[in-house]
Structures are given as C-alpha cells and as structure tokens.
C-alpha cells in the first residue's frame, strides 16, 4: 500500500449558489509577479481539469498588456464549446515555489469574488504532488513528489 507525505494543505471555502446550496471551492492563493515586479495575490480555483492556468480576460493589465487578446491565440475547449484563449508566459509563486508558466486569458470565465481564474496543470502541476479527499474537503500538497 503506497504511503504519501504532504507538507501543505489547500483550504476549501464555502460559497452559496443562488438557491442557497453550499459549494465548496479549493482555492489557492497564487502570487503573480507583474512586469513591473509588483507582487499581486490572486485566488485561483484548483482545477485538475484545466490544462493551462487560466485567468479572466479582464486581468490583462496585470500581465502588462494593452488588451487581453494580443498573445498567442489558442483554441480552447470549454464546457460551453470551443473558444479562443490568448496565451502568455508569467512568473508565479505557488506553494512556496517560483514557476514560469503559460497563462491563458479567457473571456468566458464569469466574475466571482472568491477566485479570478483556474490553477491548471501545465508546468505548475509537474512541481507538486496532490492528495484529494472530496468528502472531507481536504486537498494536500507535497513539494517533493
């Protein structure tokens, strides 16, 4: 039976849908290093289903851009069909590590006060191991997978 050790945990936050039903969200605070070297914290939804870390398009000023769609166009499959995302590279700090990773900007992510994007797999997940207990809302992270 394999045994794994984890050094960190990701906190789940309770949101409420319009009909009052609870929704538990695994949220990760990610530090984005802007082109002017400011350090900004963003709350991202931990999402194993997202191939690339994705931010809402209206966050483009944080990447030093004049508009959200001046990067590499990347047709992206979403639950609502295929849409264009635009891809950039950014430096982030997450779970205590500095990582340069692709960041997609996407217009179809609706605004939410608790998170402004998705923490996706590309480059980021390679650095860590994860353990997930849905029933108890526990997500554990190791920096030494």
């Amino acid at each position, binding site marked *: 039976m394999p045994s794994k050790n984890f050094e960190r945990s990701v906190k789940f*936050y309770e949101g409420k849908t319009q009909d009052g039903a609870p929704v538990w969200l695994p949220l990760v605070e990610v530090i984005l290093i802007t082109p002017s070297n400011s350090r900004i914290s963003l709350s991202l939804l931990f999402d194993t289903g997202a191939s690339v870390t994705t931010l809402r398009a209206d966050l483009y000023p944080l990447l030093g851009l004049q508009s959200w769609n001046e990067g590499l166009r990347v047709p992206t499959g979403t*639950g609502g069909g295929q849409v264009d995302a635009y891809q950039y590279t950014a430096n982030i700090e997450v779970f205590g590590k500095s990582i340069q990773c692709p960041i997609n900007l996407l217009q179809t992510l609706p605004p939410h006060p608790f998170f402004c994007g998705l923490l996706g797999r590309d480059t980021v997940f390679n650095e860590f191991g994860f353990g997930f207990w849905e029933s108890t809302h526990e997500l554990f992270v190791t920096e030494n997978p």
Partner: protein
Amino acid sequence: MRLSETTFEKIGDFKSFFESASIEAKSPTEFLSALDRTGIESNVTEEGHLMIRYWQIGAENFVSPEQASIIRTSRPLPDQGDNMDWLSKNLQTIRQENCGKWVAVYNERIVASSSTLPDLMNQIKEYDRPLITLIPAEPVIWTFAYAL
C-alpha cells in the same frame, strides 16, 4: 554570522516601548492607539488575543538580491492573515460597499478599490502581495464554462 549592535538596541527599544505602553495605557483601546501611533500593526483576534507585527531591519544587505530570491522561494512567506478567509466572512458587507469594483485586500481589510484595475494597481504600489479580486455587480454564475 553576527548582527550589529544597533539591531539589538532597536529590539531593546521595542521591548521597552511595549512594556511602558502596557503600563501607561488605561484601557485596551488606549493601548491599541499607542501601537497605532508608533506604526505597529496590531489585530485583536476573535478569541480576544492581541496580535502585533513590528517589522524591523535586522541586518541590512544581509544577502545579495540573487541569494534573497533563492531564500524567499525556499522559506514560507510571513503570514499576512488569511485575506481569503476574511473576504469570505465579510463578503456581504464588502459587496454592499464595493459592488462592481476591483478591491485590494491586505491584512484583512480593504486597502483600495476602484472601478478599473489599472487605477487600483496605482493605489497599491506600496503593498506587498495584496489580494486582488473583482466584486461582481451581477449575481455570481455557478454553471460556467471553463478551460479544459
């Protein structure tokens, strides 16, 4: 490695201030005001504990910027308080006051808000790692389409 004598003097000054202020203050409120005047960040927890934060340079040019970068990624960053926790607990009030605005949360309080993100960024240059989010004017959509 040896820290300067000035460093120890400053730490001593801080202890002296804390002791004298705690004796002179006639109430917790007065004591908190004394901390505010001195620039010491404080927070009274829900349990009634007084938490203080007082950043003081321990040693200037302790390491090179390159070494600092390596050290900072291998050590946990100082606790800022849980801004997300605070946001989730106070969302209703925050929404009433900042509906449709970008907000910056730092040390469990809103330190800036604006209708545009560039303007917000201009207001928060002095803060390290403020949490930024948009407080939507519209009801939150839960059945959204996301990147796969």
